[in-house]
């Protein structure tokens, strides 16, 4: 073996004033650790023989059998040269002695030794055991494909098995019992609120939640994501809805799991709603839209069990929000704002809608669905019936006038509701099925009414000019 290494070590120690440990040397020169130790010894001996110039200091590693407090233990110690003989004599059996490091300075403390090694290892983490004396056959790092597959299995099977119980517990504590999902999804949901990449975030969360069926949906989403990047005002608005969908996703996570097709279609649904605004994507929409009514119907039906008042309020509130204006993008984090006016919508929705009442996601989905449908139906006027809360006064037996709030059905058509410019786009695109349209109408009407009763939000300053 050529003696180049001697020069190398010389350079490191003398010129660069480094602390050369065997490990650092082995990683730097790419040699076996034992060889590095021998190299250090060789260098030390040579330099000592020459006895020229600077004095070198060395630390040694001593290991062996040692008696301490009456027990025999195996001791491994790093000692300075002057302590070497002392420790050697105390050992019963010496297993190994070798040079640990060489440096110019006298080390008071072994701290710098550790730092040198730490830096060396940190840079070479992937080859840290390449020059070691022990090879382990089973310690082969997994490929990234294998890792991702394992992760999916790990996340797919517990949620699937827990999905049943989780769904039943949903109403109890409103949180997913399974450990992983809420932690990852809720922060994303809240942060997603403020991210313009709401679509991709939703993509992320839905991916975690659903099983492999969603890989198809992912593909669909990928294709859909291109038009969404167009970032028009409407797409931002729908982006917000997507984030809102993301936020309640922890709660719906388990429920969603139940219907894989529905949920996988739902994620394209979230993407698709970005499209309607961008006209160029119109073609894709009709095809995907067909899925949407199915999904929105299927999904909300199964969410019946998670009905709560809070959720209802939340839903109608956000529905309200959406229909009002897209400028109110950042109005609020997903807190149900108990609005008295909200109650009106819920009970008397047509049966199809009833099912969809409870949770925000169905409502968000439905809204999206509505949005796409609006695009499809664009301009077609419909005559529909809807239930409206009306006050009816009547005379009692005792002659008192009694005023009751009663739901009455009333027919209406698209053109009747035309109150806000910003909603025009939405208005003109009414969903094909009556139910959703009713919702839309009502929310619009309600929002008109609410404009008076709700607190003016700061976004009022940023009205459309």
């Amino acid at each position, binding site marked *: 073996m050529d003696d180049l290494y001697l020069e190398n070590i010389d350079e490191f120690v003398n010129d660069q004033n480094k602390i050369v440990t065997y490990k650092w040397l082995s990683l730097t020169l790419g040699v076996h650790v034992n060889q590095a*130790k021998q190299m250090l010894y060789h260098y030390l001996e040579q330099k000592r023989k020459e006895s020229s110039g600077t004095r070198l200091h060395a630390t040694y590693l001593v290991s062996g059998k040692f008696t301490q407090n009456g027990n025999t233990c195996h001791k491994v110690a790093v000692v300075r040269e002057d302590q070497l003989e002392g420790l050697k004599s105390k050992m019963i059996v010496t*297993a190994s002695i070798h040079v640990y490091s060489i440096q110019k300075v006298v080390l*008071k403390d072994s701290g710098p*030794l550790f730092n040198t090694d730490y830096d060396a290892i940190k840079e070479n983490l992937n080859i*840290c055991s390449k020059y070691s004396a022990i*090879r382990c056959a089973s310690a082969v*790092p997994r490929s990234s494909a294998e890792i991702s597959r394992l992760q999916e299995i790990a996340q797919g099977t517990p949620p699937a098995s827990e999905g049943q119980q989780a769904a039943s517990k949903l109403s109890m504590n409103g949180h997913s019992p399974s450990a992983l999902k809420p932690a990852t999804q809720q922060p994303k949901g809240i942060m997603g609120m403020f991210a313009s990449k709401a679509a991709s975030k939703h993509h992320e969360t839905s991916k975690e939640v659903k099983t492999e069926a969603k890989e198809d949906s992912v593909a669909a989403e990928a294709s859909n994501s291109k038009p969404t990047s167009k970032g028009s005002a409407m797409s931002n608005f729908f982006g917000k809805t997507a984030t809102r969908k993301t936020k309640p996703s922890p709660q719906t996570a388990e429920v969603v799991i139940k219907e894989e097709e529905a949920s996988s279609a739902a994620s394209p649904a979230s993407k698709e709603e970005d499209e309607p605004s961008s006209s160029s994507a119109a073609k894709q929409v009709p095809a995907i839209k067909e899925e949407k009514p199915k999904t929105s119907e299927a999904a909300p039906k199964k969410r019946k069990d998670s009905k709560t008042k809070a959720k209802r309020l939340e839903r109608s509130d956000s529905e309200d929000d959406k229909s009002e204006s897209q400028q109110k993008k950042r109005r609020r984090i997903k807190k149900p704002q108990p609005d008295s006016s909200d109650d009106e919508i819920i009970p008397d929705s047509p049966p199809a809608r009833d099912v969809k009442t409870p949770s925000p996601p169905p409502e968000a989905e439905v809204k999206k669905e509505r949005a796409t449908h609006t695009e499809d139906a664009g301009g077609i006027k419909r005559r529909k019936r809807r239930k409206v809360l009306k006050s009816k006064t009547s005379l009692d037996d005792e002659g008192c006038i009694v005023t009751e709030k009663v739901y009455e059905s009333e027919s209406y058509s698209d053109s009747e509701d035309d109150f806000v410019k910003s909603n025009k786009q939405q208005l003109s695109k009414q969903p094909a099925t009556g139910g959703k349209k009713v919702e839309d109408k009502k929310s619009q009407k309600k929002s008109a009414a609410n404009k008076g009763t709700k607190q003016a939000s700061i976004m009022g300053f940023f009205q459309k000019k």
Partner: protein
Amino acid sequence: MFSDLTAQKGATLLAPPALEGPVFDRVCPSSYTNCSERFKLGERSFSRQYAHIYATRLLQMRPVLTKRAQQMWGADIPVKKLCEIQMGEQCCIVGTIFKHMDLQPSILREISEEHNLLPQPPRAKYISQSDELILEDELQRIKLEGAIEVQNFVTGSVIAVYGAEKNDGKFMVEEYCRAELPPQSPRRGPHADRFVLLASGLGLGSGNADCLLGLQLLVDMVTGQLGDEGEQSGVARISRVLLAGNLLSQSTQDKDSINKAKYLTKKTQAGSVEAIRMLDEILVQLAASVPVDLMPGEFDPTNYTLPQQPLHQCMFPLSSAYPTLQLVSNPFQADIDGLRFLGTSGQNVSDIYKYSGQEDYIEILESTLRLSHLTPTAPDTLGCYPFYQRDPFILEECPHVYFCGNAPAFQSKRVIGADGQDVLLVAIPEFSSTQTACLVNLRNLECQPISFSAFSAEAEEESEMDISH
């Protein structure tokens, strides 16, 4: 002895480099099965009362204790329930111990306004002279007196006592018996020397750098970088490394940031973030060379109640690429090379230490083995999950190696059971303070500590003192 093994080959390293360095193959474990399914929690609901654990514990252990009692005191002794005993009648009763301690912190007393009490400062031990033992079964409870040493027991232990009820309603104990060791399956260990390294209490993130070199030496030794050929070939026989808890130090848990003003803590990270990163780097070095089992401990980022669930692999992005890294629960049970290992990260033992008169960790470990229960003080003073169908901490099968982590010092003991069970008890010392780990030889169930040391300015004086002896 491991040491003897390492000294077998000659010294080669104090010489110029000659041949290519040797490469030893790590021994492959012939078998490894993780048997900790009983400690895995699925979906968790805390809506249940904790009383159910005691009920199921008594139900499960009653037949075992009845059998033991009959073995000890004759098959014809009456084993009665508390509601059936007559005054003065000699009989045997089986029940759960409740130790009434005045100094035991009671949350109700603390928050009660009428007492105006300040919260009690934490003590090392909560025992006092006035402690009493009460035996409870499904329906009743009775005070115990007599030949029963109060400070040897803790709440939650299930025992059988023999004696009679006195006039004042207390039970005079003449003898007592515990469930003793459960049955053990025969040991099918390897024929050649094979070792398992046990370490605990790495204490990363403490800001105390002294122990870091010791830890680096440990890793270097196990991965075969340190030492001469003899040592390296000896180390190649280490088939597994088990890290039993407290990988992070207690200082990563401090909640100062809660008390500080927000503007001071805005950009600060929790101490555990950096510590976990360091741990990941250490694990990558280990996992690249040896199979590692990682158990969480009291200060690690996992749930607080027992059984602690395995740490999540997302915290170890570098090392979880290696299939040799196993993240396991606390308590942990596994079959390694034909030997049953069972142990905890030490929370059970340190809790019993606080509430009983026993001083030695190994003594406490033995008493939990003889009680046939891992954590008798759970759920009274040790947090645990409200089980109701079964108590997973009951020892149903006797292990061959029974360990607990984070002991103040290394201790090991060989216990022989009544039915011929042979168990090695190991109290794994805390590495951050003792720089010591243990090696268990699977062939003959021997345990040897390994200690690591580095030099520092103070050590110089120490060594001088030693030489003067």
